[in-house]
C-alpha cells in the first residue's frame, strides 16, 4: 500500500504551470466580481449630489428624508414599525423612534423620547421659558460607509445592492459589536432571536414597490422615501427642494437618511 503513488498520478511541471495559468486569472475574476457585488461604490452613495446617473447596471440606493418641520410627534410610525416588523413591545427595543427637542431660552436643550415616542409626549410644563420645540424621528441611517458592516466578524450584517443595510438573522452570532459600532443607537439585540436587529427600510415591502410602514402611516408626510439619484423619486425631488443635513457627518459614515429643518442641536 505504501508506494502506490506513482509519477503517473502526479502533475507534470508543464501541466501544473498550465493549471496555474488558467486558475490565477479565473480566481482574480471571481474575487473582483465578488467585491463588486458586496457593496462597492456603485451603490454606496452618500452625497446625494453625486448619486445620480452612474447607470452601470448597479441599483440606486434607497434613502429617506425626514422633514422635521412636519413631524407632530404622534408616534404612529413607531407603532407601525413595531407591528410590521415584530419589534418587541418593551421600551428598550426600537427600529425607529421619535425624539423631542425642547430648546429653552437659555441653557442646554432637553431631549426626551418616552417609550420611543410611541404613546406621544407629555405636555411641556415650563412653556414660558421654551424658545422652540420640535420632533426628530430616528432610524437606521443605512450609511454608505457603515461601521456596523465593517465590524461584523462573520459578515452577517451587509449592504444590499440597493444600499440597504441588513442583518442575516440566520448567520448573526450575536456578538453585538455592530451595536457598539453604530453611532446612532439604531441597533439592538433581539431578546428572543438573540441576534442584532435594526430598521430594514421594510425591505420586504419596498421590494414589492410598497412604502416602508413608517412612511405609509405618517399623517403629515414628514417621512419621504425613495431612490437617491432617480429623477422621478419623491425623495430626490425633496432633497433638491430642501436644504438637508445628515447626522454626525464628522464620522464619515455617509448616511442615506437626510433631515430637513434640523438645527445643530440634533445628534
Amino acid at each position, binding site marked *: 500500500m505504501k508506494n502506490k503513488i506513482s509519477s503517473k498520478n502526479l502533475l507534470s511541471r508543464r501541466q501544473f504551470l498550465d493549471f496555474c495559468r488558467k486558475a490565477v486569472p479565473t480566481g482574480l475574476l471571481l474575487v473582483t466580481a465578488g467585491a463588486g457585488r458586496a457593496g462597492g461604490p456603485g451603490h454606496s452613495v452618500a452625497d446625494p449630489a453625486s448619486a445620480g446617473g452612474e447607470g452601470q447596471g448597479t441599483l440606486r440606493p434607497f434613502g429617506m428624508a425626514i422633514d422635521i418641520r412636519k413631524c407632530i410627534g404622534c408616534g404612529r410610525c413607531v407603532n407601525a414599525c413595531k407591528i410590521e416588523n415584530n419589534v418587541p413591545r*418593551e421600551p428598550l427595543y426600537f427600529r425607529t423612534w421619535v425624539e423631542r427637542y425642547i430648546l429653552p431660552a437659555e441653557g442646554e436643550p432637553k431631549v426626551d423620547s418616552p417609550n420611543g415616542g410611541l404613546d406621544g409626549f407629555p405636555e411641556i410644563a415650563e412653556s414660558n421659558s421654551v424658545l422652540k420645540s420640535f420632533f426628530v424621528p430616528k432610524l437606521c441611517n443605512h450609511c454608505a460607509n457603515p461601521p456596523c458592516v465593517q465590524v461584523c466578524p462573520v459578515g452577517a450584517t451587509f449592504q444590499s445592492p440597493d444600499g440597504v443595510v441588513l442583518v442575516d438573522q440566520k448567520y448573526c452570532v450575536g456578538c453585538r459589536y455592530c451595536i457598539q459600532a453604530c453611532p446612532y443607537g439604531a441597533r439592538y439585540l433581539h431578546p428572543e432571536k438573540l441576534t442584532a436587529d435594526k430598521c430594514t427600510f421594510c425591505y420586504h415591502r419596498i421590494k414589492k414597490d410598497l412604502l416602508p410602514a413608517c412612511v405609509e402611516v405618517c399623517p403629515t408626510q414628514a417621512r419621504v422615501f425613495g431612490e437617491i439619484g432617480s429623477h422621478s423619486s419623491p425623495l430626490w425631488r425633496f432633497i433638491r427642494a430642501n436644504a438637508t443635513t445628515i447626522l454626525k457627518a464628522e464620522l464619515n459614515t455617509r448616511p442615506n437618511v437626510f433631515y430637513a429643518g434640523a438645527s445643530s442641536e440634533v445628534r
Partner: protein
Amino acid sequence: MHESVADIAQIISGATGYVYPNEYLLQWGLLIVMYPFLTGLVAGAFILASLERVLGIKELFPVYRLSLLAALAFLLAAPLPLLAHLGHPERSLEMFLTPNLNSAMAMFGFVYAWYLLVVLLLEIWFDYRKQIVIWSREKTGAMKFLYKILSLGIDDISPEALRFDDKIGKFITIVGVPSAFLLHGYVGFIFGSVKANPWWSSVLMPVVFLFSAIVSGMAVVLLIYMVTAWFRWKKPGMACLHKMGELLLYAMLVDLALEMLDFIHRLYESEESIHILRDLVAKRLFISLIISQVVLGSLCPLVGIVFARFGKLPDEVRRMLYFLSAMLVLIGIYSVRWNVVIGGQLFSKSLRGLTVYKTSLLGMEGLFMSLGLFILPFVILYVLVKIFPPWTGNEESAGETAAPS
C-alpha cells in the same frame, strides 16, 4: 431574555439625561470585562518569561517556566467568556470559516490560534522536551503513557538535540514577544477602533492595553510564585521578587504615564464629548476609576513596591508588601477593564445621558460566572503544574530555601 417590567422601570428611572432608547441596556457585561483581563494576563506573563529568555535576566529563572504555564492556563480560559457572551455560540466557528476580513473581531481566532499553537505550545514543548523524554522513561502507568504521547515520538536527548531545542526555543521567544504585543494590542484595537464611542476611540488604546497587560501579567506571576512557594514550604527568593518588583514598577510607571497622556489629551482637546465623559467619570465611574484604578490600583502599589524594593525592611515585611501590592495591582487592572468596557457603554451616543448597569449574581453575565472564569485558569494551571512541574531544583539558587517558620 425579555426584561421584566420592574427591571425596565428601574433601568429607565436610573438613567439620567437623554439616552437613545436602544442604549438603556448594556450589550457587553462582566464577561467582556473578563476577556481583556485574561488576555492581558497571558500577554504579561509571557513577556515576563521572555525577559528571562531573551534579555537573560537570570533573577527571573525561578519564574520562567511558571510564567509560561500561567500564560497557557490563562490563554486556554480566555476565549470562554467571549464564547459565553455570544447570542449564538453554536455559530462561533463561522468566525474562522467565513470571517469578514474587514472586522477587527474576526481576527481574534487567527491571532489566538497563532499565539496558542505557534508560540506558547511550541515554546513550552521545546523547553520541556528533555524532561518529557526522561519522564516518559522513568514514570509508570498512565503518566508514562501521557509523556510518551507528549514527546510526539521524539526521544533524542543528545547534547546536539538539546542545543537545537534551546536555539529553537530562543527563536520562538523572539517571535513570541511581538506576538504577545499583537495579542493584547489587538484586544485594545477592538475597542480603540470604534469611532462611534468617544470613550474608546483612541489611538493610544492598544498601547495602554498592552502596558496594563504587562503590569497585570507581572503581578499575577509574582502572586503565583509566592503562593506556590508557600505551598511547597519554601520561601520565595528575594532576588527574584526584587527583580519582578522592579520590572513591575517600571511597567506601572509607563502605564500610568500613558494613561495620564490619554487623559490630558482628551481634556486639552475638549471635543464635543468632553461634557458627557466628565459626567461619566464623576457620576458613574468615580469609585471604579478614581478610587479603585488610580488610588488603590496604581498609587498604593507604587508606594508599596518602592518601599519593598528600596526600603530598609525585614524580608518578611518586603514579601508581604510585594504580595499586597500585586493584589492591589490586579484589582486596579480589573478596574481598568471595567472602566473601559462598562464605562464605554454607560453614556449614550447622544452624548446627553447616562444609563445604569446592575450586576446580577447568577446567570451568564452574573458575578459567579465571572468568578468561575477567573478561578478556572488557576485550576488549569494546577493541572499543568502537575504534568509539567516547573520546579527545576536550580531555582533555589536564585532564592533561598528555608523550613517553614
